[in-house]
Every structure is written in C-alpha cells, then in structure tokens.
C-alpha cells in the first residue's frame, strides 16, 4: 500500500511517480490523447520508431493547433516539427516513453509501464461497460483457488482422492448426457461476460511485459553492482559469470517468463490457441454478438509473440552483457582503465587552454594492412575527403604578353667586374667608372652599370658622387646618366 508521503508527492509536480506526474502535467490532455491514439487506439502498437512517432505528433499538433505550453514564448514561433521533437524529448525525460536504439541503429519508442497504466485507467473511465459480469469472475476465483489447493498438494493419497472425486463427477456428467441427449450451453450474457474477461486479461498481460522487461534490467544492474564492488580473484570469475546468469534466470520472474515463453512457442499450444480463437469468433458471429474490442483478441497471438520476443531479446541481451562484463579477462582491467581515464581527464583539463600542437604525435597505433588493391566493390559515391585535381589550363602562347623584357636573361657576374676594376687599380691608386667602361666596354647596358654601382656601395673605400653625373652610351642609340663612381685601392 502506498504510504502517506507517496500521496503528498502529489503536491509537487516534479516529484512522485510518472503516472501521477502525467496527470498533473500542464499538457496532460495532449499527452494522453496523442499517446493513446498512436500506441493503443486503432491497432495495438507496442513499438513505434522515432521517425514515425515524430511525424504523427507533428500532424497531431497541426490538426489540433497546439502551440505549446502557455507562457513559453519560444515555443510559439517554433516550427511544428521542432515542437514535436521537443515534446518527445520531454516525455522520454519524464518517464512517459522509453527511447532505445535497436540493433539496426534505429531509435524506437515504447510506452513505459506507468503510462500504460494511466492510459488503461483513463480508457476504463471513458468506456461504459455494457454490463458488469460478476458470475464469471466469481467462478474464476473459485477455479483458481481449487487449482492452487490441488496443485500444491504434497500428499499423494489426498491427490488420488481428489482425482477420484473428479472422475466420479465426470462419470455422472457423461451418464446424464447420454440419458437426456441435450446440453446446456452458455447463455448470451455468459458468453459476452467471458469474452470481455479474456480480453481484459490479454490486455493486462501485454502491459505486464513492459514491467517484466524493466525488472530484468533492474536485476541485472543489481548483480552487476554487487560484482564490481566485491574484490575477486581470477579463478572465481568464471563461476561468477555462470552464477550471475543463473541468478537472473532463477528469479521468480525469470522462471515464470521462461515457462510462459515455452508455452507460447510450443507448436501444439500455438495451434490450439489459434483454433480456439477461431472458434470463439465463429461463435460470436453465430450468436450475433458484436464484441467491443475484437481486434485485440484476434491478433493476440502475434502481439504476444512480438512482445514476448522483445522481452526475450532483452533478457538475452542482458545475459550476454552480464557475461561479457564478468567474464572479461578480469574486472581489474576495468578498474584500471577507470583509474587511467580519471587521470587523463584531469590532465586534459589542465592543458585545455594550451593544447598540444596538432602536429605532435601523441599515440601510434597499428592500422590496417599496407596493401594496395582495388576493392572488390568500387564505391560510386565520391569520397568527401579526396580532392580531385582539376586539370590546369596552360596559357596559349599567342595571348600571353611578351614579358621577356622584364626578365634579366643575362647573369652578370660581379666577380668579373671586380676583377676588371682591380686590374686597373694595379696601375693607379684610383679609377673612375668611366675609365673602367672605356677599357673593358659595357656589354650588358644598364644592368651592368647598376652592378658597378652596387660594388661601389658595398665598400666604404669607393666613392659615389651623386652630384656628378656621367653620360654612358648604352648602344642602340640609347644613353643614360649615371653618378660618377670612383673605385679606390
């Protein structure tokens, strides 16, 4: 029974069970209507992919012109799709929906057990039952009690006595039938009542699967926590892994589920279920009884199989995970890597404002084989990281301007010029540029003059007389004024 503090939580919208929170939520109407419609109304959908649910919610918001929570200015201007995405995120966070990624990498949603209970309760409030059947349920209770007492008997003699009473009863019935040659079938109200009861049972069974799955996860977590905190020797690890799996299977829930799954997958029982459902619908049709919720029972087998499969997969997955965790070479590895990670984290924070240069190699790993071959399947998709070289267009010679004049095609060897100056300086203590040019000539024109100038400028010995210009003949009718240079020994 819930305690008083549980009820008090009702006053705090942020606390308490998800089932209470959703009723208090400001947009409870939206949540309940939409989720009922998507997951339960027309067809029973245990799992809906994120993309589909998002599209449905976007449409729903537009159809009902829902602009978001009051006072939320940002939501007013957001696109319906964005709003829908935000709603789904919130609902997952609030524990109304679960979100998981399946093996194909697809995001999937289910209702949480809490929300499923709320939706069922709301439905039961809204639908007026045609009548309240009491007879069948009383008989059910009687039947279950009988079964309970009978099947848990240890005393074989008592069991034999019980069976003999049953046989006597059967014999009596057979005798009566042979005598009267008439049977007393169920009245219409009895049929209806029983059909409703089966339906309700099926619904609640489907709902419970979700809870079973959640509980498995909870148990796994407990086992896992227990084992990581306890110190272990290497030898005990294998037994530990096996024990953990066993433990998971041996919980009351694990065993009940196992048994259920076996029943469901037993071909004989499967065939019987099919046959019974077919007969029930024939009967309903023959008696002209319109069942309120016919679709569910008609598809009950596939729903049960689907849900059962899901729980089973979850169970297998948890088992494999558990195995992986505890069977790992040693739990020490895990602890060690945790410790290393903690250190690395600390160091990484320290270097955050002065990160190592991107050119520095921090780790070297073995990559794939250095093996060049064309892959069997050539990808037609262009790879993004490769840049295809564009062919460079070469300028055609005729449209290019003649730039040769800009380029000094002749290299002036300064040492030759220096040699010429020094040769003259052997005979005299100083010599002017004019005298050098007169003796050796000016073969390269202006460039050569400039070279002489740079030789003069390179040493303090020589003089450059800017104010005194000398005219030099450059050949081809050209001439140039150049400052007088005096080279000294």
């Amino acid at each position, binding site marked *: 029974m819930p305690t008083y503090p549980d009820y008090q939580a009702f006053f705090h919208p942020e606390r308490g069970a998800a089932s209470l929170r959703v009723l208090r939520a400001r947009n409870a109407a939206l949540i309940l209507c939409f989720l009922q419609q998507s997951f339960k109304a027309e067809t029973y959908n245990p799992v809906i992919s994120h993309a589909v649910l998002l599209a449905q919610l976007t449409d729903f918001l537009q159809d009902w012109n829902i602009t978001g929570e009051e006072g939320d200015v940002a939501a007013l201007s957001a696109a319906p799709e964005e709003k829908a995405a935000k709603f789904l995120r919130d609902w997952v966070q609030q524990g109304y929906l679960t979100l998981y990624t399946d093996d194909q990498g697809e995001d999937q949603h289910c209702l949480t057990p809490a929300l499923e209970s709320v939706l069922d309760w709301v439905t039961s409030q809204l639908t007026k039952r045609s009548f309240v059947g009491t007879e069948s349920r009383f008989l059910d209770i009687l039947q279950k009690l009988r079964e309970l007492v009978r099947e848990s008997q240890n005393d074989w003699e008592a069991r034999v006595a019980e069976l003999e009473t049953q046989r006597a009863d059967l014999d009596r019935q057979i005798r009566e039938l042979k005598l009267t040659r008439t049977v007393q079938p169920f009245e219409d109200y009895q049929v209806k009542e029983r059909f409703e009861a089966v339906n309700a049972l099926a619904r609640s069974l489907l709902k419970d699967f979700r809870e079973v799955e959640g509980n498995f996860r909870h148990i796994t977590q407990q086992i896992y926590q227990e084992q990581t905190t306890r110190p272990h020797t290497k030898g005990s690890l294998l037994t530990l892994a096996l024990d953990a799996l066993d433990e998971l299977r041996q919980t009351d829930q694990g065993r009940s589920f196992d048994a259920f799954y076996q029943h469901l997958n037993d071909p004989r029982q499967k065939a019987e279920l099919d046959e019974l459902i077919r007969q029930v619908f024939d009967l309903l049709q023959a008696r002209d009884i319109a069942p309120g919720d016919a679709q569910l029972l008609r598809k009950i087998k596939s729903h049960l199989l689907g849900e059962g499969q899901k729980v089973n997969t979850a169970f297998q997955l948890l088992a494999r995970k558990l195995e992986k965790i505890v069977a790992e070479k040693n739990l020490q590895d895990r602890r060690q890597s945790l410790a290393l990670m903690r250190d690395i984290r600390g160091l990484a924070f320290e*270097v955050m404002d002065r990160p190592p240069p991107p050119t520095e190699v*921090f780790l070297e790993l073995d990559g794939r*084989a250095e093996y060049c071959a064309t892959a069997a399947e050539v990808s037609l998709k262009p790879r993004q990281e490769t840049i295809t070289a564009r062919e460079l267009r070469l300028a055609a010679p005729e449209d290019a301007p003649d730039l040769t004049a800009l380029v000094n095609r002749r290299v002036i060897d300064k040492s030759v010029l220096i040699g010429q100056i020094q040769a003259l300086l052997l005979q005299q203590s100083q010599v002017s540029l004019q005298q050098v040019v007169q003796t050796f000539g000016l073969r390269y024109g202006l460039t050569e003059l400039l070279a002489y100038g740079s030789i003069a400028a390179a040493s303090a010995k020589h003089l450059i007389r800017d104010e005194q210009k000398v005219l030099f003949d450059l050949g081809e009718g050209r001439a140039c004024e150049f400052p007088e240079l005096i080279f000294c020994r």
Partner: protein
Amino acid sequence: MAKPYASVIIRLLQSHALYTDDHPYWDLLQKHERAVRAHFEDIGVEVELNANQGYARLVQPERGPDDEDAPLKLLRRIPLNYEQSLLCVVLREWLEEHESSPTAGSLRLFVTRADVRERVELFFQQQPNQKAQLSRLDELIGKLESHGFLKTTRRDDLQPDQTQYEVKPLLKAKISLSKLEEFRLRLQAYVESV
C-alpha cells in the same frame, strides 16, 4: 587453385576488421579458422578473433630493436595527434560504459554527432566561432572513421547533429590498457613541459 577461404584472407588484408555481420566472410572465417590462421602464420601475422566482441583483425607482433630477421611491417602505423587521441580515449570509455549499462537496447553503441560533441566539448577550449569548432569536430570524426573506429550509420543532412555513428568495439582493442597508459604518460610529460 584458390582455396575456398581466399576471400577471407583478402578481406582481412583490405579492411580494418571483420565483423559478425560481414557476410559471408565472417562465416567463412568460422569455418576455416585454422587454415586462415596458418596462412598468416607463414608471414608472422596473427589473426585475433574475439568472438565476445564480435570482430576479427590482423595483428603483428612488435619487432624488437635487434631482431633483424623479423619480417617487414605489414600493418601501417597510424599517428594520432592530441585531439584525435583524446577523442579515441573518450570513445573507448564510452564503449565500456555502454557495455555495463543495463538500459541499453543493443550491444552495439550508436552515438549522434550531438552526443559526441557534448562529451568532448568539456576538454576543448571554447572557440567563439562555433562553426569552426563544428567543422573541426567533423574533421576529427572523419579521421577516426577512416581508421575504422567509427562508422556512419545514418546521415542526416538537414540536421547534421543527428548524424549517427556506430562506435566499433575495434577501438577498445586498438586502444589497449597499455596504450591508455602511454597516452597518460605522454600527456603528463607535456603538462610538465609547458
């Protein structure tokens, strides 16, 4: 005549690793494991088959400094800089977390770009230019993808943040405990040097 398992050998040479869903190569490897191993043994390469994690890859023992007879290196060395190494380390931690999480719906780890960003943002200095930061992250992711640690499983061009990658368990094998230790020492040395 080529052996029936020739394709497995070629596949192992061409890819980073073989996974359980690489049909038909994985099944062929299961069937001819011994022969495939023998083939690579001749050239001093080992086939590491990890059924628990669901992959098979080639490994070559470290060559000692005075070991002159050791065969040539077949596996290419891939150098990682600080940011790449750090992302690898973060993803490796994530894999471990995922393995021990009872709420995960699959043994495989799928992450979106937004998830990755959230995790690594802590370690990298905030840049005022968000766009540049994002493209740097994409570049990092692309690099790790080319090394076979990540695989794009869902591309979302409208919402690039929702692009989904699978983190391959190969990463955990490549970044072994000793590599983690190596990285820690390297980083420690760097911290002391600046």
